[in-house]
């Protein structure tokens, strides 16, 4: 990677972090409605994965989708405007936090029913396989999704049809407030892929470069016909499941321990230690990222509400 690329990944992670923190404030002040699931702590996962994809590779994820939205190149303005339900939002204010997508950037959402997007991912990959296009579909989901039937149907189908999918489990240790050992018969999630004879491995999701390197290699193999593969990426969400989470299920000590293992801090250290960037340069990136997020709030707040007639548009293509 060129230096500018290293710095850009740092920029993306800081934008996500600051955007999520701003969103939390806007939620508490009532400007964002509905559910809000923050990506704080998991930034290295999507930043690393998506930095390794090619434009023709498709991305699809669950409802914790703001980070992915930024990584695929949706502007902070459009993400923030969507959170505020404005006409300028990426889904025209009709989707909200859980339903962001940009098909021009090969980002297929933003899906809010746990696990339901996994069969869709198999279908996206089928679209490419059908036309002999060498592209990979990257499907992200949480550890909680590995206990629902959709997961098993999708993994099975992808293997039976040898589809170019990379299944990415973001293991953040909790399905809402329930720990893996209380919800899953198999505590080591990646072993579920063994049940479908699917190549799998565990990656440290706090280390952006580790995620990126593994992803580069796996995407390449899948692109070249290895069949579907499975990545379990170990990560942690620093905030609750959603903004309404009282967090009775975990100790502050545990949260603190993980926070000291901050993906942005780890990457920062790496850039300094390897002499890729200086403290001053990274400070500047942080400042730029903060300016981007601040501007996005101003943009979203000053954006118009959707027009009333939008209520009845986009139900069908053909009336």
């Amino acid at each position: 990677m060129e230096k500018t690329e290293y710095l850009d990944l740092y920029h993306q992670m800081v934008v996500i972090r600051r955007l999520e923190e701003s969103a939390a404030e806007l939620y508490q002040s009532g400007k964002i409605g509905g559910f809000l699931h923050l990506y704080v702590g998991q930034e290295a996962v999507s930043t690393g994965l998506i930095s390794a994809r090619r434009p023709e590779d498709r991305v699809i994820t669950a409802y914790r989708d703001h980070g992915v939205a930024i990584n695929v190149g949706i502007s902070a303005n459009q993400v923030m405007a969507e959170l505020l339900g404005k006409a300028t939002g990426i889904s025209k204010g009709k989707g909200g936090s859980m339903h962001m997508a940009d098909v021009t950037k090969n980002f297929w959402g933003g899906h809010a029913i746990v696990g339901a997007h996994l069969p869709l991912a198999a279908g996206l990959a089928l679209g490419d396989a059908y036309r002999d296009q060498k592209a990979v579909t990257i499907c992200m989901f949480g550890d909680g999704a590995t206990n629902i039937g959709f997961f098993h149907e999708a993994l099975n189908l992808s293997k039976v049809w040898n589809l170019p999918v990379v299944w990415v489990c973001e293991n953040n240790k909790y399905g809402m407030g329930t720990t893996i050992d209380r919800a899953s018969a198999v505590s080591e999630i990646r072993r579920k892929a063994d049940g479908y004879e699917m190549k799998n491995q565990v990656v440290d999701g706090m280390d952006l470069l580790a995620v990126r390197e593994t992803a580069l290699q796996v995407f390449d193999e899948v692109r070249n016909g290895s069949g579907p593969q499975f990545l379990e990426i170990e990560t942690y969400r620093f905030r609750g499941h959603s903004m309404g989470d009282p967090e009775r299920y975990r100790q502050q000590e545990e949260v603190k321990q993980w926070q000291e293992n901050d993906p942005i801090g780890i990457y920062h250290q790496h850039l300094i230690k390897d002499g890729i960037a200086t403290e001053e340069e990274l400070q500047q990136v942080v400042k730029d990222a903060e300016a981007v997020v601040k501007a996005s709030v101003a943009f979203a707040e000053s954006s118009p509400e959707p027009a009333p007639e939008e209520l009845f548009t986009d139900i069908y293509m053909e009336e």
Partner: protein
Amino acid sequence: MARITMREAISQALWEEMERDPDVFIMGQEVGVWGGTYAVTKGFYDHFGPRRVRDTPISESAIVGAAIGSALTGLRPVAELMTINFAFVAMDHIVNEAAKIHYMFGGQMVLPLVIRTVGGGGRQLGATHSQTPDAIFAHFPGLKVVSPGTPADAKGLLKAAIRSQDPVMFIEHATLYQMRGEVPEGDYVVPIGKSIVQRPGRDVTIVTYSKMLEVSLKAADKLSQEGIEAEIVDLRTLRPLGMEPVIESFKKTNRAVVVEEGWPSYGIGAEISSRIYEQAFDYVDAPVKRVAQKEVPLPYNRTLEQMAIPNAEDIIAAVKEVL
């Protein structure tokens, strides 16, 4: 025009659309090597090959979900659910994904998807395999729901569904595959959302669709012998609902019977009669009557099952009540 069966008409529509557009493909249980559990896709696998005629595992969520995903890439999947009773297993993908995906992302995603499935009772398949839950699917904005009652409409509507840019549930009836009728050859397309008068009459309007069209026509023939001329409107599409021919007919006859095979509660008849009252209240000479399935899970026993499913006598009795 050739006189062919409903099965042949559906098969013909699929075949012609697959020949016409390389993006059209079929996926579902036993659609390939087996040739379709109702033999609709017999010969397709050998002709079009395994890429375009895809046998799936028994995984309804994966069938509908993967069909959605492939449709998002611009393919035109015809996903087959062996019976509509299995659609419940895929309910999330039908109602939470297919019906919403265009709207929810602000119109970015386009879903040219057809879900072909089979409903209806009368074959002693017991409670779980005999349902007519069409109204449930017609409940959701974003889906289109089509259910033909003649071979010609089956061909024309299936072609329209495959060419549609919207997700369409295409509901066939298990006991209509042998029905014969005149079917135009070649590129015959029937627009979705248009009801049609299948039999003209002056005394009463019978609104129906699918299998109950056949039963209603029988009833109308018997009524005719008694000098009662029923006009039969075939809905053909349940969503979007084409009410114009219904209202036009009702304004002429001032009396209506709605006939459906499913249960009456919250059903097609409830919807149609409510719309008649809303749109033509001044023309009402008698309360609109519903003929529908008895409110029981369908039993296996043939006699009991037949008691539960509407027949021509039920329709005749209802017509006489409104006259």
